[in-house]
């Protein structure tokens, strides 16, 4: 947490400096090496005083757009979100409290999703709730089988 320091100066230059310092040529590569790690922890690792998680998020999106892998990016964000919100995996019973928990993760994911993919993300979320995955399910990366069926790559 930085009270604004993450927004001082040219943060994009700073972000990529840190990525290169750690031996990666892209933010995506840096993140891939840390699957299912929540975004805020990625930001913390890159600069606990001057990098905000949302900067990492937007950097990842920009790279995904260049690589035409936005759907994969959207899945990756959901994975990181779920590991933060449901560390013990998908709840056994979707009772009142657990439903809120899942809904919370979904809502956040939806808001992080770029406009182009919102509708698909929304449907994928509904499908997850309608046909819940097995208890304890916790995707480890964007290539999780179930996630791929819910939100397959469509990029051209």
């Amino acid at each position: 947490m930085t009270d604004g320091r993450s927004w001082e100066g040219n943060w994009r230059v700073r972000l990529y400096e840190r990525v290169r310092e750690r031996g990666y040529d892209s933010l995506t590569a840096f993140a891939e090496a840390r699957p299912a790690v929540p975004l805020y922890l990625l930001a913390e690792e890159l600069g606990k005083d001057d990098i905000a998680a949302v900067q990492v998020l937007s950097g990842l999106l920009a790279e995904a757009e260049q690589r035409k892998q936005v759907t994969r990016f959207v899945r990756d964000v959901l994975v990181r979100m779920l590991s933060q919100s449901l560390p013990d995996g998908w709840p056994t019973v979707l009772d009142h409290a657990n439903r809120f928990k899942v809904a919370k993760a979904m809502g956040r994911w939806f808001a992080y999703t770029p406009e182009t993919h919102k509708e698909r993300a929304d449907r994928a979320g509904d499908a997850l709730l309608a046909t819940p995955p097995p208890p304890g399910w916790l995707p480890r990366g964007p290539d999780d089988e179930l996630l791929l069926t819910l939100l397959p790559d469509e990029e051209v």
Partner: protein
Amino acid sequence: MGALHRTQAASVSAQVLDDGGEQSVPGMGLGLTMRVDSSGAKGTGLLLALALLCNACVPLTPPPGPGRSLGYSPHGGTRLAMAGVMAAAPGSSDATVRRSALATHLAFRSALREVSGSALRVSSELSRLEASDSGIVGAGNGIFVRYAEYGEARLRWIDAELAAATEVAAAASEVEAPEMQLALLRLAGPRLEAAMMGSMLLAVWVDFLTLTDAALSRRLNSVEALFMRLDGWQKMLEPAMTALSSQAPEQVEAAAQDMPALVGHLSRELAALLEDMNKGAKVLETALVLKESMEALTLLSALKFTLPALRAAAPVSLGVGLMVGPNGVMMGTRMVVSAEWVEMMRQLVRAGVLSVPAVSAAVRIQAGHVMMAQGHGDLSRGVREALGDSPEVRAMRVTGKTGAGMAEPPRHHVMPNELREWFEMRGFTGKMSIEWFCVTLQQAHHQAIHGGGNWKLGRKWPGEWNRMIMEALYDAEAKAGRMLTRNTILEIVAVYMQLYDIPMNFVRCRGK
């Protein structure tokens, strides 16, 4: 400061207060004072100190050990934005923040209990005064009743602040995100602080009333003179009381800073009244009445430590420094506050819930250090550090304040103001209205968050804070299939603040 000292302290208290009751219990206080009398003034101090200690004996889960990694960074407020900082501290983990949140929560509850306890004592003293028809109530055709009523009104205010603080603390305990728990406790901090300071002042006021009551019922002073004195004292108290009830953290803190001096002044006033009463009692018979009545007095406030004894003009504790000992803060051989109390306050100060000036003032007033107010007014470094003060806190106190002529940093609603009603329907009303959840942001930060500046990376990035947060909330509500609870909303908000690197340090935008 382990269990050993706590046990020692508890057993000593139990020996002295053999009923296990507190000095404050109605009737008990009288007995205690009577018993104390035979052992002289020194004994009085010791016993009262023990009684005080007993009051402060609250079970408390100690915070993580001395090696805990609590990082700080300056923020736009005089309280620490702990949560965010801790999340980023080296080696920090969710577990550390969780532990800290729990410890802070327990300390907060203890402090609430303690302040409620003293409010209760004030309340029963006031009832007792109002029940006697020879003194305050009966004298001068009831012209003194207004002063008791003033006490009642102030008491109601303290009770309301405590209730509000309790409510917010309860909300904090229901939220899962530990950073948000801490943020909510900080939100309730100024209320707790105001109630704590207010109850100290109120105890002084009740002591004035008690003394006046004694003088009136024994006809030691003229009704007019006493009336005028009370009027003057009320005028002295009122500005501090008003500042405390302003709910503005800066004002509360400033009032706290001035409190030792004020209490010092008031205690000199009280001493002067005693002196006059003494002079009035020329005839032996009257003198005996006076002696008896003084012995019956149960003073609630810490003034009892500063008042010179009636007969032996005992020197007040001038020039005796406060020191941190294994059992708490000591003044010479007298315990001022217990180690448990110190630990509780330390936790609250370091979490940014209470301010250093307030806690220092509380210690100085308890110690009767008020006489030194004009000179070297501050506590020693050791005591301050024990209470959670640190260079970081000090630095922040300086930089956090807006200097003369400097503009207040603008405050921004975390939950969009345009959708106030939506939030109201989901429980954000009163003490938890969205007005309380504002943040101050640096310009660059603000621009970035509201989608301005040079921030957009992805062309279609939904970067605008209000839109983003509402999308998340609307979607979560749709997915949940029912109206979101206040806590769920707070948890979602907490994650977004973390995402955007906004310190979870709430200030009030406007309103009460």
